[in-house]
């Protein structure tokens, strides 16, 4: 487990507790535990919290917090104290104990615009890249950037590559990699990750509760499908 944390303001309406600015399962488990604690021990003026790789940020209404808790020196001081308590009192439950969610990905040319370029850059064959991408079970570390966009890690160090210098238009369902991360774009969007395939799955459905298909702590693995299979699944 971690033995250190830092609490700092994210403006005057949010406070972050950070456990070490690294990608580590145990830290992410603790972030989830703190978030559960915070939701169970919510306070007047609490608005939302966002769990990330190694941090939890609590958003609040400072006027409401100040009014309800006048003995605190500031709303910031009050919420910081709650995060400290969340750290001290929350109990970690290991996540991802269930079977991995299996997601089909078509890695064929029309749906994998950057695969050949990446293969060239990495001095590997496209098949090797596909193999590296599909031979691991990933963890959902956080959801962010777009509704339902899951940050999955960690990919093989052989796939590590910096982000593109400039974002380009990306289609919904595109599977991208950068650094030691992989993810699926839930919507058409500009994106800076290298696109190596496309998944015929809906990752964000506003009519469902929750609308995001993946949640923090989930285990995910990818398996290759042909363009034909993609077409069939895409129509479902």
């Amino acid at each position, binding site marked *: 487990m971690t033995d250190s944390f830092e609490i*700092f*303001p*994210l*403006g*005057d*309406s*949010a406070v*972050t507790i*950070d456990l070490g*600015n*690294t*990608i580590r399962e145990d830290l992410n488990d603790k972030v989830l535990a703190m*978030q559960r604690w915070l939701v169970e021990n919510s306070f007047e003026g609490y*608005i*939302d*919290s*966002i*769990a*990330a*790789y*190694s*941090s939890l*940020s609590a*958003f609040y209404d*400072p*006027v409401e917090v*100040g009014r309800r808790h006048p003995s605190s020196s*500031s*709303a*910031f001081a009050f919420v910081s104290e709650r995060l400290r308590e969340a750290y001290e009192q929350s109990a970690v439950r290991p996540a991802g104990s269930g079977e991995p969610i299996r997601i089909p990905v078509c890695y064929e040319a029309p749906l994998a615009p950057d695969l050949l370029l990446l293969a060239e850059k990495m001095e590997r064959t496209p098949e090797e890249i596909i193999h590296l991408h599909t031979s691991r079970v990933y963890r959902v570390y*956080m*959801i*962010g*950037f*777009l*509704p*339902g*966009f899951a*940050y999955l890690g960690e990919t093989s160090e052989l796939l590590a590559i910096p982000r593109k210098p400039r974002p380009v238009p990306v289609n919904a369902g595109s599977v991208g990699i950068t650094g030691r991360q992989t993810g699926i774009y*839930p*919507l058409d*969007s500009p994106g800076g990750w290298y696109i190596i395939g496309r998944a015929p799955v809906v990752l*964000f459905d*506003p009519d469902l509760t*929750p*609308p*995001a298909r993946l*949640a*923090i702590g989930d285990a995910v693995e990818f398996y290759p499908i042909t363009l034909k299979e993609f077409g069939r699944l895409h129509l479902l």
Partner: protein
Amino acid sequence: MSLSIIKPGLLDTIQDMGRNGYGNWGVNPGGAMDQYAAKVSNLLVGNCCTEGVIEIHFPGPQILFEQNTLISITGGNFSPTLNDEPIPLWQPVVVRKNTVLHFPKQLRGARCYISVHGGFCIDKWLHSVSTNLKAGLGGFQGRPLRKGDELSFKENTVYFAGLLKEENNLQILPWRVNEEKIYRFPHEIALIPGKEWEQLTEASRNQFLENNFTIHPSSDRMGYHLKGVPLELQQSMNLVSSAVSFGTIQLLPEGQLIVLMAEHQTTGGYPRIAHVITAHLPKLAQLQPSDCVQFKMVDMKDAEYLLSLQEKELHILQRACHDHLNELVC
């Protein structure tokens, strides 16, 4: 019981105080850029301050009222007229059926807010009517208003006809909000230091506080790009992604800055230099490309105090508007 869009403006969307509580699904709050103006617009017509309003930019739309109603327009001054008669901002106005609202000239500010008494009939998505353009969800069909769109009113506002004198197209009601205090010194924006503030070189910290920055034309509801002297970190940093907020100022790799605005994404990984205090977000929301900003640091107590003053005034305004309206229509 509705209004219709005769001609759309640059970007007219339905917004409220945002879609809060869904950050863990990657759903950003969005909402009105200038939340003070949006709240006041609602309060002036007797609504709850969280009701949906139309946020417009310049050039603004042309709007036909198909029903007598009570409206108010707040925020930037686009010199609004009703059938060519000027109407004041920050003041409730009864408008007659079959009149046209028009915004001929941008005098000041970047966006304004139109409310109607009772609010608009818009289905909520995740407890908010704010339009999320990226997801194409929320607001009016998840998109900006277009020619021919009809927005129904929640309440039958026909009784306002009694306040219209014969022949008159409009009746300006005799109470007004003094917004000057909120927007005073429009280019001076107060900040709280961010986590990576101390990681800037001393020279960059001084430059940041001593120089003006200009808002770049590529700025939008997601963020304001700032043009100015490039800033430097003492050493390059590799941050894992974490939550960001409305008003977070991030340092981009080339040394330029971006201020995250209402439609910002939920998380980010760039160094956080500072955060605009919530009480100054309305001022910032009314600045536009080529305007400049001058930053100053304040402490958390000042930030919280300024915001509590604003809230207190809104509270008083809510009661006053409520009493005035009751006297008029009961």
